[in-house]
């Protein structure tokens, strides 16, 4: 069962137990700082190393060597004296480094001298017609079930989109004996030319050989259609078919499961709610926090590490976690920093881990028709708002995502904009002839995940707290 934090004050609180969070926590605790790791999931690993301590997939070749690297990070964490709490949902972080966390239905409050946000990434919204139908999921969702429960697709399965994760997932499904009927590759042909200037760095990075071997493995077993320019899902209350256009020719195939993927983007909700400045990244087409070389954000004491700092992949995330932790140690216990890897060594590790990334970002830059939908395609899944609804609101005066809330409630459902925010920004930017940076993003606030009123009401209150709101 979930437990509350043991202390009220920590030197360092790390949020998220993926590659960056695991590395940051172990580094900070090894240097003797009181360190607390808070994570929303059942066990350590984040998404890339999901269920690393509990997966029923015991044949190590099936998930691949890159996955099992996570076991070493968990071992280093367990060898340290860091306090680790899973199933802990951080719902507030502010400029005073006060943290509110919900564990087992009750909230606790802790204060940190430094906070390292390692909240990672989520899959970029893929708003095509029919993407809310039961039977349409993200590729990451299928991979989560595969790693944590050994579940593989069984019915007629189509995978559509682009990016390294798509091929990795396809290979893993096939290795576990799952079914894939067709892969629809949406990579734009012109991206291959655009990516050429970055090809040398990529060819000499570890991504290249691994990627090539994996694509060959998949293509030997599954029909792959490349150059897909249109995509939609249809069915009555349940996915029945997938329709696509490739090379100017439309085809419709029956399907029980459609897995979508067009890359990952930083999960910005907690960082933005803490007041951290973000900027639109024109290459990665997402919001990324403004950080210095030590990972420090615009809010004093809060660093961001891992894919939440801009997409860099798992290896870069580990190094960024160590860099942020080392920066915290230098600030709080300079003498202890001597026993850690030097900043120069870490920077060189990071450059190595980031090699090949601009090539991937350019090659797998998603096409505008898969990011900016039209007509009746749903943009906001929670409030069921379509692209046309958004454009109609712009026509009568909505200027940006925050005004749009008053017109259409976009971003005000339980997901708090996680699945519509980027789409709304880009759609409004296009409609108003402005840049995404000018249009901006939702103003995010605590609680960044929903909690019950009962839980809020049960929070301990001082007499002054009560006086501040009670009349008379």
């Amino acid at each position, binding site marked *: 069962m979930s437990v509350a934090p043991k202390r009220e004050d920590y030197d360092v609180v790390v949020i998220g137990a993926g590659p960056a969070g695991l590395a940051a926590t172990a580094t900070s605790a090894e240097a003797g700082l009181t360190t607390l790791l808070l994570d929303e999931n059942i066990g350590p690993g984040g998404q890339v190393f999901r269920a690393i301590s509990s997966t029923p997939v015991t044949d190590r070749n099936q998930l691949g060597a890159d996955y099992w690297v996570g076991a070493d990070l968990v071992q280093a964490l367990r060898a340290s004296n860091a306090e680790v709490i899973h199933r802990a949902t951080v719902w507030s972080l502010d400029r005073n480094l006060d943290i509110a966390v919900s564990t087992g239905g009750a909230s606790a409050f802790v204060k940190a001298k430094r906070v390292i946000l390692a909240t990672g990434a989520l*899959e970029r919204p893929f708003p095509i017609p029919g993407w809310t139908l039961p039977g349409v*999921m993200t590729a990451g969702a299928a991979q989560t079930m595969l790693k944590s*429960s050994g579940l593989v*697709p069984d019915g007629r399965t189509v995978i559509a989109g682009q990016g390294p994760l798509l091929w990795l997932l396809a290979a893993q499904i096939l290795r576990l004996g799952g079914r894939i009927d067709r892969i629809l590759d949406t990579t734009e042909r012109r991206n291959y030319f655009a990516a050429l200037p970055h090809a040398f760095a990529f060819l000499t990075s570890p991504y290249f050989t691994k990627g090539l071997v994996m694509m060959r493995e998949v293509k030997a077993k599954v029909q792959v259609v490349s150059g897909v320019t249109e995509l939609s899902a249809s069915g009555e209350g349940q996915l029945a078919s997938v329709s696509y256009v490739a090379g100017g020719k439309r085809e419709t195939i029956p399907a029980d499961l459609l897995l979508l993927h067009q890359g990952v983007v930083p999960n910005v909700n907690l960082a933005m709610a803490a007041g951290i400045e973000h900027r639109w990244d024109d290459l990665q087409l997402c919001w990324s926090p403004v950080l210095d070389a030590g990972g420090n954000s615009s809010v004093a004491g809060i660093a961001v590490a891992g894919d939440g700092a801009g997409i860099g992949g798992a290896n870069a995330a580990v190094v960024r976690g160590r860099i942020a932790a080392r920066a915290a140690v230098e600030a709080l216990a300079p003498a202890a920093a001597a026993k850690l890897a030097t900043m120069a060594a870490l920077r060189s590790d990071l450059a190595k881990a980031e090699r090949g990334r601009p090539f991937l970002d350019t090659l797998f830059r998603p096409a505008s028709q898969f990011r900016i939908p039209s007509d009746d395609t749903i943009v906001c899944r929670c409030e069921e708002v379509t692209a046309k609804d958004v454009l109609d609101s712009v026509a009568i005066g909505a200027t940006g995502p925050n005004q749009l809330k008053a017109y259409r409630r976009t971003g005000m459902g339980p*997901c708090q904009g996680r699945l519509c925010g980027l789409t709304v920004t880009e759609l409004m930017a296009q409609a108003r002839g402005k840049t995404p940076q000018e249009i901006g993003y939702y103003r995010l606030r605590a609680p960044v995940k929903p909690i019950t009123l009962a839980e809020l009401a049960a929070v301990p209150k001082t007499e002054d707290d009560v006086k501040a709101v009670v009349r008379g």
Partner: protein
Amino acid sequence: MFRRSEQDRRPQVQIFVDGVAVAARQGDTVSAALLASGRDARRSTAVSGAPRLPYCMMGVCFDCLVTIDGVGNRQGCLVPVAEGMQVEIQKGRREIGR
């Protein structure tokens, strides 16, 4: 839609979905257990009543919302199954008090 790998040797856990016993495995999330069960686990949305199943399985999309042991709007993809757990598929809006 999904089936279990033969190498999965985890112990069984019994949960109840709308009162019907469903076999899950230790370490499954509620959402994974529902999808593995082959049952119709579609909820319907509060806004239009449209049917939905989990989309992201990682805690961000909220399409996995279920009532667990009497508490509504829980993210089924973040909650591990427990022996005897009572899961209800949500149809439409939640009522006050749950």
